[in-house]
């Protein structure tokens, strides 16, 4: 590939954009620009390109060439997946769906001119802009930690090298050592994620380092699937996990990455690994585009359009939409509603009513899967929950195994729904 960090994957059926001048695009066609190639962005790009059958010019801006899904990255930590199993590229979106994939950072949005500027120079014009940038961390959320400390105390909450680093640190723990996690306050990406991670780390330690301990400092009094996880920890990893919730000072925490210490409610502990998952906010481009209010970007439930700009839609973790959890499944679901609305606005295709759903599977130990899910609808105020279910404590091993196998099927399904 050519030209510094910016690459266009030219595709049959799409007029090749001038490599040094991304402004030059197919004449006359409506243009959709999608920022962020995760569960929201990749899905939106694919559905708009697929369903418009070439009537809409779709550009996807995503800095990484290899995308690691955050969902299932805990299973990599637990040894149930290889890193390569959760790695995806954008070749099919470009080749089979005619999406212009631009590997670059979006660094600004000019809402009057309707252009997105790129770190590598130049800008891309849009008629409709879809922002699906995921999360960033709130500065100063955990005393003593900032992003510069992420190699000593990884967050591993954007999958890839951080996840690899955290796993290497867990594997290198001394016998009987201590793994600490600083859990985030609500709302955050993947509500069961930190607790599935605790389970996966416990699984690895039980096999390799059974006298090791896990401490979780949590600013919350309760968490997603709490009864299921706590039952699982007691059954599979007895005495290993010490969860310190809000009531016991779990929110009063500071860390010292150089000394590798964690201080919880005034009590300092030397630890061997410290996974700091700070408070979160919308990915930075949402803020740069001026569509955030506080940490997140408020949207209209019917089409995921920004409350600040009808030509911008915000998907997934970055959006503030109501009742849906911030999950890959939610982002994928929102992307389809958004794609349908955007296509309708640009080409006059039929727009159908919004329907949203989500299911989150978590793995507690080998073949011990649990899930929680719900359906949602668009109301005038927000995306509102309609109905839901959750796995029960005390379920049989057969059902838990079936739930885990179902999660593998879901992973294959959603990733092919995102990347083609």
């Amino acid at each position, binding site marked *: 590939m050519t030209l510094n960090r910016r690459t266009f994957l030219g595709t049959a059926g799409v007029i090749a954009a001038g490599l040094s001048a991304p402004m030059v695009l197919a004449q006359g066609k409506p243009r959709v620009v999608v920022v962020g190639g995760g569960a929201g962005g990749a899905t939106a790009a694919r*559905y708009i390109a697929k*369903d418009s059958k070439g009537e809409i010019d779709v550009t996807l801006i995503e800095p990484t060439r290899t995308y690691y899904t955050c969902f299932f990255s805990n299973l990599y930590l637990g040894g149930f997946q290889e890193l390569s199993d959760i790695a995806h590229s954008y070749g099919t979106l470009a080749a089979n769906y005619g999406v212009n994939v631009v590997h670059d950072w979006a660094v600004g949005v000019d809402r009057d001119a309707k252009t997105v500027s790129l770190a590598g120079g130049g800008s891309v014009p849009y008629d409709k802009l879809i922002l699906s940038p995921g999360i960033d961390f709130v500065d100063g959320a955990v005393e003593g930690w900032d992003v510069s400390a992420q190699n000593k105390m990884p967050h591993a909450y954007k999958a890839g090298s951080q996840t690899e680093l955290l796993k290497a640190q867990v594997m290198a723990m001394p016998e009987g050592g201590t793994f600490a996690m600083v859990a985030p306050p609500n709302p955050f990406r993947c509500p069961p994620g930190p607790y599935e991670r605790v389970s996966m780390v416990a699984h690895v330690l039980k096999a390799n380092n059974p006298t090791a301990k896990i401490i979780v400092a949590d600013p919350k009094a309760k968490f997603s699937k709490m009864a299921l996880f706590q039952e699982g920890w007691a059954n599979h990893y007895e005495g290993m996990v010490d969860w310190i919730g809000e009531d016991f000072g779990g929110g009063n925490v500071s860390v010292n990455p150089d000394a590798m210490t964690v201080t919880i409610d005034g009590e300092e502990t030397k630890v061997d690994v410290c996974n700091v998952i700070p408070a979160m906010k919308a990915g930075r481009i949402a803020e740069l585009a001026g569509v955030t209010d506080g940490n997140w970007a408020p949207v209209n439930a019917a089409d995921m359009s920004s409350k600040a700009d009808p030509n911008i839609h915000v998907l997934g973790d970055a959006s503030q939409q109501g009742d849906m959890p911030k999950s890959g*499944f939610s982002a*994928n*679901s929102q992307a*389809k509603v958004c794609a*349908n609305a955007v296509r309708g606005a640009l080409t006059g295709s*039929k727009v*159908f009513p919004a*329907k949203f*759903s989500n*299911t989150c599977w978590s793995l507690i130990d080998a073949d011990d899967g649990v*899930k929680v*899910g*719900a*359906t949602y609808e668009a109301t005038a105020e927000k995306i509102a929950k*309609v*109905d*839901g*279910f959750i796995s029960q404590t005390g379920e*049989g091993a*057969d*059902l838990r*195994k*079936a739930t885990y*196998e*179902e*999660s*593998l*099927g*879901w992973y*294959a*399904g*959603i990733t*092919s*729904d995102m990347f083609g």
Partner: protein
Amino acid sequence: MRWPTILMFAAALGALAPATSATENLGDADAGKIVFAKCKGCHQVGEGAKNKIGPHLNGVFGRKAAALEDFKYSKSLVRAGNSGLEWHADTLSAYIENPRAFASGTRMSFAGLKNAEERANVIAYLRIFSDNPRDIPEADPTAKGTDHSVDPEILAIQGDPEYGAYLSSECTTCHQIEGSDEGIPSIVYWPDEDFVIAMHAYKDKQRPHPVMQMIAARLSNDEIAALAAYFRNPE
């Protein structure tokens, strides 16, 4: 327990429940024995029955689906069993009415028994061979065989494939459009009727699975028809 005992059992129940329903819903076991001839190619039942192409059917009432250890069931039935499907008069009836609509991917290659009376009769016949009281929850002998034939008016709805294509995006988060069957069943290239019956079976909580029951619960008859029209031949 043989037939005379069954009658006594039914009579005993009759003392507790309204007398009419018990015998009415059980069907006629003698007539059912004749119906069972259609099943005999694959299934044995009675003394010395063994697994053949299909599992033996002794003690099937009250048993979890796919529960015989020495029979290799389809993934689909194993999944249904793990999700809580037990064989009772209603579930057996729904299954044999249209096996594939009830359990996608079942290896039971049987078109189905559309006649409700024949189903009730053959179930009454099978019921004779489920004679261990432990396996007979009180409701079983009198449980109404659910006639799971969907209202013909609903089956007659012509679905809008374009709407189905939009709605299908909710399905393809899990079910792959290429038709993979690992962990989650394939739902493509189904006959419309099978699809509609299956979705209504989830909607009516006849098929067990919390995600599917939830998804189906809010789909209208038109939406289910639209999905069937789309998945019949996607793209």
